[in-house]
């Protein structure tokens, strides 16, 4: 087992609560992610894993608690501090979220053009390198609409990598992709991990890919952490909700409801 207590955490959440209206989605999460670690946040739909990701990058304001990224509490950071942090992180969105009015190359060049003083020719080279990294070389001049879903995701990775971030966040990197493309994306994440020792946070519900890429796993269920630890430890967990999730057992409660309903309606009939 690794000793995660020695290095200072790169990302940490303390008693993190997020509310939409009066419905609390995340109920006080606590965790730390250290440098160079790949943490997979696993959870079913509606478990709050996407909300967690949005909160970690500052797109969602928590109702209480704190999120520290590289020592700065982003829930209290000024706009300027926030911009400085955002230049050090990359986020690959689920649907890509490429700017539709710009070709793929310019999408990747955008943060470089806006935030650096590099020469256009240098930026052009960097864009080509990033595209090559994700296996999309030669697609600079395509518009995002001309790409397939998997290509759009990979282009989004390239954009997230553009500023050479210290922390990378992935939202459902392999959701909605065919197995081959999904495996390609897992390989890509493993490559990045090996080559740059980046800190990565991956949100997913794909079990196979989670156990393949994760150093540590955080399993979310209905807004709370039910299991957290090295991948192997989570895999061997005896916690009933963890087992249910990992063994792909359907929720029985809903079926019970339907049965009850049937009982009632049959009686009426």
């Amino acid at each position: 087992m690794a000793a995660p207590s020695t290095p200072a955490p790169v990302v940490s959440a303390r008693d993190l609560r997020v509310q939409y209206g009066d419905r609390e989605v995340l109920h006080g999460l606590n965790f730390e992610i250290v440098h160079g670690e790949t943490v997979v946040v696993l959870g079913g739909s509606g478990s709050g894993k996407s909300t967690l990701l949005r909160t970690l990058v500052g797109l969602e304001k928590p109702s209480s608690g704190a999120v520290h990224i590289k020592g700065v509490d982003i829930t209290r950071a000024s706009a300027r501090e926030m911009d400085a942090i955002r230049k050090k992180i990359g986020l690959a969105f689920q649907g890509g979220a490429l700017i539709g009015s710009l070709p793929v190359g310019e999408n990747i060049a955008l943060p470089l053009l806006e935030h650096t003083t590099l020469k256009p020719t240098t930026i052009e080279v960097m864009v080509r390198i990033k595209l090559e990294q994700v296996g999309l070389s030669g697609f600079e001049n395509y518009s995002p609409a001309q790409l397939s879903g998997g290509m759009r995701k990979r282009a989004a990775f390239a954009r997230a990598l553009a500023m050479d971030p210290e922390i990378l966040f992935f939202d459902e990197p392999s959701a909605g992709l065919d197995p081959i493309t999904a495996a390609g994306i897992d390989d890509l994440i493993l490559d990045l991990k090996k080559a740059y020792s980046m800190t990565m946070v991956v949100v997913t519900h794909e079990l196979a890919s989670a156990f393949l890429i994760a150093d540590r796993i955080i399993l979310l269920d209905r807004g709370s952490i039910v299991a957290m630890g090295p991948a192997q430890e989570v895999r061997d967990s005896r916690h009933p909700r963890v087992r249910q999730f990992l063994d792909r057992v359907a929720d029985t409660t809903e079926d019970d409801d339907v049965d009850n309903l049937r009982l009632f309606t049959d009686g009426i009939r």
Partner: protein
Amino acid sequence: MQFVTEVGAASERSVAYVGGLAQLFGRSLRLLFFSPLKRTRLLQRAVHQAMAVGVGALPIMSLITFFVGVIIALQGAYQLQRLGAMQLVASLVSISITRELGPLITAIVVIGRSGSAFAAEIGTMRVTEELDALETMALDPVAFLVVPKFLAMAVMMPCLAVWSDFMGVLGGCLFGVVSGNFTFGSYVIATRDAMVPHDVATGIVKALVFGLVITAVGCQEGFSTGAGAEDVGRSTTSAVVVSILLVILIDLVFTVLFYLARGTA
């Protein structure tokens, strides 16, 4: 009692809406002068917007205001003929176009072309998470998207208003020359005598304010878009409807103010 509460709630919403517009404008103004983004890139985007908003509108704008000029001349001639005052057609056209119809028709065409486009563009970006993506790349969506639009509108609306004044007068001239007893030269002289610089100036000021309002409404509607294609359509519709309403209201306020100012002078 129910009715009073509803009226109260509705007026509160309207005031909050206008407050939101003012806030967006204020934020854009601040971001224009203290931009976190590169100024040259900002100008490039503003020029790009200006081409779409201004230059792109020229053909349709010319056509519409030219026809409106002809219509005003025709309608005026109808009445003026009975008084034997056909020579007043030129001043009728020039006054009604420069004071009122030039800026107003400019605004309405720009609402249809650009106000709706702003709402649809930003609304779609909301739906596809592009706004979130911009934010995570440390590119403030207001600084990145809205500031260039305000800039482009502030420059192009007055230009378009002046151009539509010109085209409207040209339309009136066509009628004057074809069926009135004007020559091209005499019509131009009659127009020049009737036209007051003050009228043109107020038209330009109005056009500028209209442009800012159209941009603010279009962008605000875009930002407040919900989560689907249907919501983009709804935002676009309300951008157009609210813009037209606000432009007419502002026009009314301006006209009343100018009228009062004239009365005391």
